[in-house]
């Protein structure tokens, strides 16, 4: 087990290195220049060249990359070009804002998907199954940004029940998940984030349970006189490795892929930060954010793999 874990951890290093190279190259290929946002609307090309030199952006790209990589290896993600603040602090603050809503969204989606997935599988072809399937397909199909805007129109603008934007009335610094005055700002972002994974996980749970319920050992359990509820519990235990793998993937997607939802709600997480970094071509911030997200994605998958091997002895043996 430990050898397996160590091997997986070592394998993450080339993956992350590859991520840094791709990320650096993509940022450079895109047109635009980070220092343009720091220039006056009437600045000359000479002003731009002077500022570019001051930030080391006039160096050849490989040198820029290795300078950046050297700093990263000692834990320094650099300084944001846009606001002169350390990237590490910026990213970690945003990351903590994203992780919490992503965790809540995925946990919510997981619990509900297990519930609805099991009901749909047990009532296959009946009205409950059709309704749940319809909601799941809606969740999979609906673009999250459209859902986010619709939620704002309904719950913030028309009903005035929830705030439309931001993370707390005084910014994220005073945010608390244990006070409704703060938490209400998170309700719509969590809902918009939770629906797509809810749809995906419900559909997967339904088909996995339905498949298990048709297997021979289930017939044996029934023949032994177990109640239907106990049979379903056996079925659920059998799909857990698959469900946890799905959970890990969805969490990874939400942490890294919530750009649109966070932008619509002005939620100051990593997605929002990435959007700002792209718009201002803030290369250190962009690289730092992507690196942290990629690391998180890799670590989540590593954790899921280890969990799966703990839950399912067949994986450990293999």
């Amino acid at each position, binding site marked *: 087990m430990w050898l397996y874990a160590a091997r997986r951890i070592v394998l993450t290093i080339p993956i992350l290195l590859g991520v840094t190279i791709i990320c650096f190259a993509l940022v450079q290929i895109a047109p635009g220049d980070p220092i343009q946002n720091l220039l006056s*609307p*009437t600045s000359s090309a000479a*002003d731009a060249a002077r500022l570019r030199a001051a930030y080391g952006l006039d160096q050849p790209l490989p040198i820029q990359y290795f300078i950046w990589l050297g700093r990263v290896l000692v834990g320094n993600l650099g300084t944001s070009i846009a606001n002169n603040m350390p990237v590490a602090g910026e990213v970690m603050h945003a990351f903590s804002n994203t992780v919490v809503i992503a965790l809540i969204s995925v946990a919510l989606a997981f619990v509900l998907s297990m519930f609805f997935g099991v009901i749909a599988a047990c009532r296959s072809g009946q009205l409950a199954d059709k309704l749940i399937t319809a909601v799941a397909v809606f969740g999979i199909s609906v673009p999250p940004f459209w859902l986010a*805007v619709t939620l704002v129109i309904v719950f*913030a*603008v028309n009903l005035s029940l929830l705030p*439309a934007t931001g993370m707390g009335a005084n910014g994220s610094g005073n945010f608390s998940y244990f006070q409704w005055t703060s938490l209400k700002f998170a309700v719509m972002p969590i809902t918009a984030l939770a629906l797509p994974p809810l749809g995906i996980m419900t559909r997967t749970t339904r088909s996995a349970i339905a498949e298990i319920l048709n297997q021979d050992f289930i017939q044996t359990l029934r023949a032994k006189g177990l109640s239907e509820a106990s049979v379903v519990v056996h079925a659920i235990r059998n799909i857990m490795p698959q469900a946890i793998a799905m959970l890990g993937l969805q969490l990874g997607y939400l942490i890294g892929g919530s750009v649109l939802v966070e932008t619509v709600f002005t939620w100051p997480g990593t997605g929002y930060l990435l959007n700002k970094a792209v718009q201002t071509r803030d290369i250190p911030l962009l690289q730092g954010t992507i690196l942290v997200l990629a690391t998180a994605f890799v670590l989540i998958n590593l954790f899921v793999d280890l969990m799966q091997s703990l839950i399912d002895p067949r994986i450990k043996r293999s």
Partner: protein
Amino acid sequence: MAGWNIRGALKLAVCAALASSGAAVGHASAESVLRVAMTAADIPDYSGAPDQGYEGYRFAGYTLYDGLALWDLSSSDKAAGIVPGLATSWAIDPSNDKRWIYKLRQGVSYHDGCPWNADSAIWNFARVMDPKSPQFNPRQVGQMGTYVANIASVDKIDNDTIAINTKVPSSLFPNEMAMYYMISNCGVQKAGNDYAFYMRQPAGTGPYKFDKVVPHERLELVKNDKYWDPRRVPKQDRLVLLPMPEASTRAAALLAGQVDFVEAPSPDTIPRLKQAGMKIVMVPYPHNWDYLLRTDIPPFNDIRVRQAANYAMNRQDMVDMLQGVAVAATQTLIPSQPWYGNPVGYDYDPEKAKALLKQAGCSPCVIKVGISTSGSGQMQPLPMNELVKEQLEAVGFKAQLEPMDWNALIGVFLAGSKKYDYNAINFSMAPIDAVQGILKKWMTSYAPPACCNWGSFSDPKIDKLGAEAVGEFDVDKRNALLTAMNEQAVADASELYIVHDLNPRALSPKLSGFVQAQSWFQDLTPIMVSP
């Protein structure tokens, strides 16, 4: 006993919570707060060198800082001009037309108590002009360098008087000083000349003082009770600035009561905002949405092609599409600017456009246009450019639009037309004064790598008039020369004129007292916030 204690503790907790919430409500009701949703993607630099275009100057510049001159933002009826700021007066030295004498305002202090005087002024110029000074900073140069480019040196005459020596005679130099902010020399020195550290407690002399910032989320300023101009002491206690680049988010935030003042609502949200009782304000201001043309190569090196493009524009269609948030433009300036003149017009005349293209032998007249998908001052670039393309192609052009994001288009503009193969770019500009609206746009000497004659437009008549205007210190005579320059530029069809933005803003009904100036900059100090 234990049960009583728990109940007692609960009662105490409830009472304490009620008391604290009451205190909070009381505090909130005692303090009037103006919350502004900006279009900026992030909080602009508030160190005295704002980034993110003129929106940065509007909210993180003129709120915290003053220049030697200020824009007069007190009227909606005329284009804003400059008035005394941290200098009470200025005049050219009668014996030297390259030496401006500035009398500094006395008794003014920065927010941190640091005195404003000649030493502070000279320190402020060195922060951008003198690479050997400890306060010199490339970031500050990037934003502010353009405004001091014509300064050779600055001398102290006495504690309240300085002399600014320019490299060449420049009668329009005082305009540049309305864009150059003075920051606390004591504050920067105390921060060890580290501007990132200084930004923890920045200090200017402006009507608002820095209070706190949540990076990327909000900048909070408070009223400067001791502002030197009592007429401009803010009528609200706190100003909260929130970056909200999405127009739909800004509108939703206003409708949900989370903000009070919204910049640039999109035209399609305006009816809904009006229906909810929001006030929509707009005035003409120097912001033309146009195409800059590359005039050193075909097809736009031929005046007939440039004129044809202008005659092809059905500007009213554009105004209608924008639901009235713009007015038709047949030149760069707006009528209230003193150099507007009486130039030729380019009313919609597709037959004339077709005839001009035929004369020029340009058929189909293929052009490649760089456009942005969004951006500060770019209005609704995608549908607007589609309409321009449609109108151009109706008379014989074949326009290829090449979209890119705003940052990339700024790069195209700064690099100049010769670095790319665009025949035109849709790059809205801010002709706020004669320097930016006339001289830098049309004089050959401002062609790349200088700013801002992107398309290398050149007309010897304009260059001659410009040289005379810069050396003319009599205001009336200078304005006559500048007017003649502008009229000639329009006669040359120096760019494709389309519309002037009316700069809509949406205000909560709780607000009163706002006077929207005909300017990129606005004075937020008169705004009163009702409970």
